[in-house]
């Protein structure tokens, strides 16, 4: 009798186990093929000044974060305070303003503060496609050579900042010297 139910039971347990693991997985959390590769090129107007053209070179040079945000993106607001805190600690943060309108984006920064070093204005998601962005917010960590070392999809929280982003920044800065 025990032998008879052993096989179906173990099979059912395997299936249940797989389903359980699947429950904990976030389908948005896709691995980016760009991690480990140089940050892609782009050429966009600066959000703050349409006369100024920003390129990849403006984002590269030291260890930096690149955040993709938009004023219409609700979850971007929840993570915005971490960018302010990190900027106060001296972390360099650049940004793509993604599928947005200049006016709205400027207003957003007036209200929530502007922790960004350079902001590239990307209303048509041109750079977005080059960088493999598919939903805001997304955050990249670049090393001093402009290699993408990490990508976080979705809003960051205190844990992500403390356990993933800050240690990586420290490690990359240590590598640099």
């Amino acid at each position, binding site marked *: 009798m025990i032998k008879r139910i052993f096989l179906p039971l173990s099979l059912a347990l395997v299936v249940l186990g797989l389903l359980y693991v699947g429950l904990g997985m976030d*389908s948005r959390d*896709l*691995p*980016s*093929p*760009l991690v480990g590769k140089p940050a892609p090129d782009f050429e966009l107007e600066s959000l703050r000044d349409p006369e100024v053209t920003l390129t990849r070179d403006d984002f590269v040079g030291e260890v930096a974060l690149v955040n993709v945000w938009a004023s219409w993106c609700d979850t971007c607001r929840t993570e915005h305070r971490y960018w302010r805190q990190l900027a106060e600690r001296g972390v360099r943060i650049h940004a793509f303003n993604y*599928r947005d309108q200049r006016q709205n984006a400027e207003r957003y920064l007036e209200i929530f503060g502007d922790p960004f070093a350079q902001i590239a204005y990307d209303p*048509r*998601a041109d750079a*977005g*496609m*080059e*960088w*493999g962005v*598919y*939903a805001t917010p997304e955050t990249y960590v670049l090393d001093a050579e402009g290699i993408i070392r990490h990508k976080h999809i979705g809003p960051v929280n205190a844990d992500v900042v403390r356990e993933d982003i800050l240690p990586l920044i420290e490690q990359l800065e240590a590598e640099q010297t």
Partner: protein
Amino acid sequence: MSVRVDPKPAPPQRSALGWRLRALGIGLLLVAAVALAAPAGAVSIGQPLDFETEEQEEQYYKLVRQLRCTVCQTETIYESPAELAADMRRRVYEMTVDGYSEDEIVDFMTARYGDYVRYNPPMQMNTALLWVSPFLLLVIGGVAWIQVVRRRRLLAAQGELTESERRALERFRRGD
């Protein structure tokens, strides 16, 4: 005695109407030009597109049905209303018209969005289980089936019932 003289006599009514018509005409022409020009921003669902050759058209419609929209993950970019899908359709269209091959376009998308963007995933180490699992299930099912059949055959081969068993069976049938 003053005679009021208009420095510029108002143009006759008809001419004003003419101007308006002309403005309307120019406006319509502009709209038509915009509509006919290659899609500048994004390609909306079902938007008619111009191709130079039939092969290009085939390639475009084949590719948009094979690429996944990474926002609405159960949809191809052919059917997804997401903005990202519209941009990806535009990119596939532009690259197709520019003469890029199917593989080149798929590589372009894969380089940015990963293998996940392909509805037809390549056979690799990390997709091996995906490709092999149907055959694996077939083997497991086949083995189970053979086992069951063999056991039944063994039971059948055990032969006739004994006298007492047959009597017991009779009793059950009668319902005693």
